[in-house]
């Protein structure tokens, strides 16, 4: 029988040894050879890594690989068949994004800090990776030795730096903004030092400078005006930037001004009706407000039976929705003012959207105008923006107490989640045209955005539903006790908390949506993946460079999704989701 030992006194645990006392050998023994089984695993792993990485690198760096065909095709990867004499339109799009990014940085100032120790450790890891890669790369002298020398130099330099910095490395920090500035400088240096993309040296420099200038201007404005208004304006500008870029800037539409002019009286009339309705509904008692709403509802159905421009019919529906939602959002006088501004903005946006949808593009091409990374971004961002409202509506429908809505939402969600995306894409590509009147069909890209949004909304709805269920019923009861209507309770109490709780899941959904955009290659859209798989390997100069292009595609997608997931981890930590 084992002897039972009883501690006579409780001693405080000894402090762990200082990290600097633990040498490399101790680290090895602790992490790689701490048991016979682990030692065997380590040896097997090392041998596997050595041969695996070596043969992989030998395959990728063999003489037959033609990596030199990648840089000349940069424009193809980015925009594919976009008219080469209209590329300035692409640059204008990039500039819009750069300006918005600069402004946003100045408004939401990145507050994070990085310690010097982390930066130096990162550089050391980089050097170690270079050393290992150089060691594993087969072949004689040449770039291999250069890589190894650089790696070794980095390790030695960082070791010296760490010794010099010692304690200070842990304490002293660099603001994220400084890291960002350094990154911009490095990118500029790379652009000008590397000969690979000489044709875009000047445009990219202009874009970076534009972003920096926008940041500085933003700082000036921020110092002088209300941050709340600015934030709203910039968020609205981000949302608007997508239709502006893809419907106006890149299509060069031919706007039929006389037709648009003939709509104006109707649009003005509906705007005034909407404003009046919002005012009436928020002032009158419930019974009379309901009468106003009923009249609007009747009018919005009635306009479909008289000959009136289509846009007026849409606007009437929007007016009814706004009037119905007015009691929820426009209870206070300030709320009413903001709500009215929102209504006018929506009228302008719908007018813009419908006008742009009805105009033909001014740029002549035989094939789809948009392609490459450009289209991948459009599909991902457009699909995401459209799927959010739809997904939230479906989630609300699925958790609703009204059985018909619940049945319809549940049916939609389960059917869409049960089939693969490719069937839904084929549905948009091949089946939808059969259900539309002859002559009415959308461009392939537009249909793909809609279909991806419809598909993604079903998954999003399940995530949001999880969030809705996580909101405690006490919150709802409190809202009821305060006399809130169901609409107010949902929009002001339940949804904000639900959405906050599921941010990680939503980002995960966005990441998988981004990866899923590659499927449009199967239905023949020229997205980035199709350019890399089919179009570039079939060009005379780069004929047969399949593996090179596939590796490139993998790396590009990886960089994007990996940075998304890292950003989402940071966001999660900042919001403190799951820690409260």
């Amino acid at each position, binding site marked *: 029988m084992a002897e039972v030992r009883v501690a006579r006194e409780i001693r405080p645990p000894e402090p762990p040894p200082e990290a600097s006392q633990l040498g490399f050998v101790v680290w090895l023994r602790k992490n790689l050879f701490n048991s016979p089984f682990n030692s065997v*695993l*380590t040896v097997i792993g090392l041998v596997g890594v050595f041969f695996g990485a070596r043969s992989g690198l030998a395959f990728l760096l063999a003489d037959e690989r033609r990596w030199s065909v990648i840089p000349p095709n940069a424009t193809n990867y980015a925009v594919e068949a976009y008219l080469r004499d209209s590329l300035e339109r692409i640059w204008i799009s990039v500039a819009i994004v750069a300006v918005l990014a600069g402004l946003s940085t100045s408004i939401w100032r990145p507050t994070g800090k990085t310690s010097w120790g982390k930066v130096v450790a990162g550089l050391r890891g980089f050097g170690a990776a270079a050393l290992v890669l150089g060691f594993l790369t087969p072949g004689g002298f040449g770039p291999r030795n250069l890589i190894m020398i650089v790696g070794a130099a980095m390790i030695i330099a960082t070791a010296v730096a760490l010794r010099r910095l010692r304690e200070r490395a842990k304490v002293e920090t660099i603001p994220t903004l400084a890291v960002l500035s350094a990154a911009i400088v490095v990118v500029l240096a790379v652009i000008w030092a590397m000969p690979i993309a000489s044709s875009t040296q000047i445009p990219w420099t202009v874009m970076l400078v534009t972003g920096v200038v926008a940041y500085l201007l933003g700082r000036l404005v921020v110092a002088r005006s209300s941050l709340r208004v600015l934030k709203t304006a910039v968020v609205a500008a981000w949302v608007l930037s997508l239709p502006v870029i893809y419907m106006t800037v890149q299509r060069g539409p031919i706007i039929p001004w006389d037709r648009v002019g003939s709509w104006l009286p109707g649009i003005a009339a509906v705007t005034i009706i909407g404003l009046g309705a919002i005012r009436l509904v928020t002032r009158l008692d419930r019974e009379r407000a309901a009468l106003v709403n009923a009249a609007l509802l009747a009018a919005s159905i009635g306009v479909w039976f008289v000959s009136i421009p289509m846009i007026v019919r849409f606007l009437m529906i929007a007016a009814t929705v706004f009037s119905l939602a007015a009691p929820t959002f426009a209870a206070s006088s300030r709320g009413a003012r903001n709500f009215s501004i929102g209504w006018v903005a929506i009228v302008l946006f719908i007018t813009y959207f419908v006008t742009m949808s009805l105009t033909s593009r001014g740029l002549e091409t035989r094939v789809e105008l948009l392609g490459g990374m450009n289209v991948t971004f459009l599909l991902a961002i457009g699909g995401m923006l459209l799927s959010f409202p739809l997904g939230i509506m479906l989630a609300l429908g699925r958790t609703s107490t009204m059985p018909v809505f619940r049945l319809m939402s549940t049916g939609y969600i389960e059917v869409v989640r*049960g089939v693969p995306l490719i069937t839904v894409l084929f549905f948009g590509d091949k089946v939808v045209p059969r259900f539309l009147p002859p002559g009415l069909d959308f461009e392939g890209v537009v249909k793909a955005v809609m279909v991806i949004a419809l598909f993604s909304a079903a998954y999003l709805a399940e995530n949001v539903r999880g969030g809705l269920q996580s909101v405690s019923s006490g919150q709802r009861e409190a809202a009821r006790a305060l006399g809130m209507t169901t609409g107010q309770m949902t929009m002001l109490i339940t949804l904000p908390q639900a959405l906050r709780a599921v941010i990680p899941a939503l980002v995960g959904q966005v990441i998988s949506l981004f990866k899923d955009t590659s499927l449009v290659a199967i239905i023949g859209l020229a997205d980035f993946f199709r350019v890399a798989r089919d179009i570039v390997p079939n060009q005379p100069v780069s004929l047969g460079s399949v593996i090179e292009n596939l590796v490139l595609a*993998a790396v590009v*997608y*990886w960089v994007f999704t990996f940075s998304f997931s890292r950003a989402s981890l940071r966001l999660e930590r900042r919001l403190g989701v799951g820690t409260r």
Partner: protein
Amino acid sequence: MSIVAPQTKPPIWRNGTVLKWAAQIGVFAGVAALGWILVSTAMANMRAQGVSFDWEFLTDPPGIQLAEGIFTRPASGLEVFATGIVNMLRITVSGIVAATFLGVVIGISRLSSNWLLSKLSTFFIETIRNIPLLVQIVFWFFLCSLFFPALNGVDAGPIPGWLVVTRKGISLPWIFPQQTFWQWLVFVAAGVVAARWMVRRRVRQLEETGQNTHPGRYGFLVFVAFAAVGWWAHPLAGALGWVWQLLAGIVATVPLIGWQLVLGGAAVFLAARWIFRFLDSRRTPAGLARLTDDDYFRMFLAGALGLIGAGVFLLVPGLTDLIARVTEFVLRFFDAKFDFLRTGAPLALGRPSIVTPGRFPQIGPTGMTLTPAFFGVWVGVTLYTAAFIAEIVRGGILAVSRGQTEAGLALGLKRGRLLRMIVLPQAFRIILPPMGNQYLNLAKNTSLGIAVAYAEPIQVGQTLFNQTGDTIQVFVLWMAFYLAVSLVLSSIVNWYNRKLALVER
């Protein structure tokens, strides 16, 4: 003085129930109207183009060839789909097994105390998860079809005669079911039942006496004994052939109207039974509980579905006919697999071979041959799913409270045993639901095989509608197939989940 609210009913436009139902019926009517407009447009379009909506392409010769599968020269549209479905199931089933194994190993490795192993697993997961599956599938396909060794002669492969890896495909030795396999299967199934009985009995003994009765070993022995006896005794099971024959005969002789009545009656009966059970579940000792809108709606829906089902069976004889014919076909299929006089081993080993029918050597049919397309899709979906499963496994293991591990260590369990007997069984309960989702994703992701022309349902369907123009019908078949797969897989997972769930008292 007290204020007494007037006890009048609210007017109809302020009655919550009325308003709610009006809104629901209004929206439903709107959706139905939209659907009706779309369908009538589609019918007008088809009439204008002179296309008719029918299902004849399912029985007509399609005039296409498929790259691989059970019917490479299908005689009908049905055979085309059957080939696609079997190809899809091949990847799904083998992929699920492989991805589970790989995912569990990698997920555990990521938590290993061995720095190298855990970093390697992290590297694998972060690489595979962040690259679109489509890119990976196309990559593996091209890697196989462009860079594997060429098929030069009969001595191809790393191990000639056993393992052949070439640009034309990979061939492995495999155990193939023979003519008598189905008869043997009856014995195997009986073995499973008997082994279950034996395990339960032994477990009961163990619980009563506290002595190790080795339930697992005994169960396994019983199973092996049944399988071994069946290996030679399987012709006895051939007698079942008569049973199948008899049943098929009955199905064929009952007139159609009989089946219509039976199926229609079954629909009404099921609906009625559901409604009565539902009412029972709402009954409390104090009488029937107040039913909500939702409850009435459910009963209404169940009743309506039952009546609609009965109506469809009675008014559309074609559907009942199809069901009867499929049943008969299945019974005849079984009948053909059983024969008293059939002898021989139920399984046989097949080894890869190289044949040279014309000028160029080809991989022969004797081994299990995987085409480059199969290789690409299989490796792609397996690795991709394994990466996700690994993360699920890691999360599940971390979710088991640390006290369990410490208690196990305190009892003197070694790490391997601790993992196997304490941690994994508890983690499994957490892991199972998300794992089921991954299996579903794997099944759906096989549809990406179309990118490398692997003959799965989407690819064969596309080939078919390119020939016939029956896009809507093919789309309906796709939906039906994938929804059925989702339903089957999720009910298996749910059933297993219920079985594993903690019994709460």
